[in-house]
């Protein structure tokens, strides 16, 4: 099958006050449809930079990214992003935040009632129907991120990009949202690329874990296949041999092969 996203010899260089800084160099990766891929690495290794490149929020200085047969030249709703800090508009209700995306994608072809129905469905999918008419300032951090996820899923993107989606949440809320996400991904069969620094999260959610070397000039160090049946359950996985193997492999990569000297 042809991959949905092809990343070919991509390099990214930023101009800083101290001169050019090479964040990424020669990154090659192919993402298949329906696949869940995690990007993991030490902080500052360029995980988010790579995600922003796929999103089209920044353009590479080297190489090319191709999505669905076309070169990525800018951001677009077929590559929805869930931002780490949720980025909901505080002056719109949760419903209207989701609706804004729905309207943009389906507004031309569907009736208002259908658009509202889509929005409602997305909000129900993340179990936020009770708070749909609230403003983001009135709900908790976990709830905001649920709405952020609903907004992204409601646009029915080709690929969903998540930049440390649960990084700002406490451990219990994070677990609840991971389970939520597992359910949503199961239902929609979405293609997902997720940046994380949480080893358990990476193994629990992904089909493949892409491990990046330390920057500057970071690139892909190893790719780990996670051969665990879906849907996954965090309790029964705790002593699963494959789960432990994957975890071990990532930890070895992060803390032996890529140990940061002065962290």
């Amino acid at each position, binding site marked *: 099958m042809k991959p949905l996203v092809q990343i070919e010899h991509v390099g990214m260089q930023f101009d800083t006050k101290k001169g050019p800084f090479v964040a990424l160099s020669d990154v090659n990766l192919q993402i298949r449809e329906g696949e869940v891929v995690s990007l993991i690495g030490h902080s500052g290794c360029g995980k988010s930079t790579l995600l922003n490149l796929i*999103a089209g*929020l920044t353009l590479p200085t080297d190489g090319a990214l191709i999505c669905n047969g076309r070169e990525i030249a800018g951001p677009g709703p077929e590559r929805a*992003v869930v*931002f780490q800090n949720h*980025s909901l508009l505080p002056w719109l209700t949760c419903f209207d935040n989701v609706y804004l995306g729905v309207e943009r994608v389906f507004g031309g072809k569907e009736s208002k009632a259908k658009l509202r129905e889509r929005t409602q469905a997305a909000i129900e999918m993340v179990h936020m129907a009770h708070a749909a008419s609230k403003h983001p300032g009135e709900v908790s951090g976990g709830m905001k991120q649920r709405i952020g996820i609903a907004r992204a899923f409601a646009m029915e993107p080709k690929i969903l990009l998540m930049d440390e989606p649960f990084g700002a949440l406490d451990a219990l809320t994070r677990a609840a949202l991971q389970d939520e996400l597992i359910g949503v991904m199961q239902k929609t069969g979405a293609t997902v690329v997720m940046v994380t620094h949480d080893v358990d999260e990476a193994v629990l959610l992904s089909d493949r874990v892409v491990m990046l070397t330390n920057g500057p000039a970071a690139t892909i160090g190893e790719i780990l296949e996670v051969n665990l049946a879906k849907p996954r359950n965090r309790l029964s996985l705790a002593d699963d041999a494959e789960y432990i193997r994957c975890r071990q492999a990532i930890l070895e990569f992060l803390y032996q092969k890529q140990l940061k000297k002065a962290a």
Partner: protein
Amino acid sequence: MSTASLASELGSVRDLPICAQPAQTVTSHPSTSAETMQTIHTPSPTAVPNARRTALRDGTQRVLRAVIPPILGFALLILIWELVSMKTKGIPGPLVVWHAAVALFSDPFYSNGPNDQGIGWNILSSLKRVAIGFGFAAAVGIPMGFLIGRFQFLNKALDPLISLLRPVSPLAWLPIGLLVFKKADPAATWTIFICSIWPMILNTAQGVQRVPQDYMNVARVLNLSEWKIITKILFPSVLPYMLTGIRLSIGTAWLVIVAAEMLTGGVGIGFWVWDEWNNLKVEHIIIAIFVIGIVGLLLEQLLIQLAKRFSYENA
């Protein structure tokens, strides 16, 4: 909100009449009565009615703590005023001014020709000038602020000009206004325009420059149209800054209008002050000072309430 603070809230609002009695005792001996109340209530074993009573007491104490200092402040002002008026010839005391004010405000809207009108008409015509001048300033300043905030080139081009003109007293522009408009009234409005426009431009521009990058990223990912970006993202996030600009503008405009009207004459609170000075009715001048202060205060509070309505928690 916790139940305790809710109760104290209720205590402060609804149960105020019931608390009139302890309130009076507290005023006469604030520290001792508070202490005795505490020694009586704290060791009491009956928790529920006690808690309610404590909440009640906290409520009244909070109201008293909020109300007593300003009352004392005003009392001090009136005391000093009375002393000054006793020592100085020509300055009327508080009581004289109070009687004059009662007389003045019993018929605020009379009109005996252009030079003798009720205080109500004078205030209204000053407010009208401020509104017109400010309206023009908003119509020009807000779009200009948006442009300056959005385009670096315009910012660089106009920043030195604004820096140069902003510190100039708007009254210095009055002769230009008289020259151009040939009439006193539009010239006064013109000075209001000049003094209102700078805060509008600067605050709007700052608001546009400070639109969080996250929101712009959302706009880019959703690929929103330029119209949607303006209505759903730019305008709402700039609005609080704009309202700050409006508040500063109106504040200055209200300061300036009094001086401008003293120079241009006509009907208006500033002219009225000058007229009463010529009539040597000092008690009316003192009334005017209070009126100008109160109107300014009301304008400010109105705009603060408006700003509260449109400020959003970003977290």
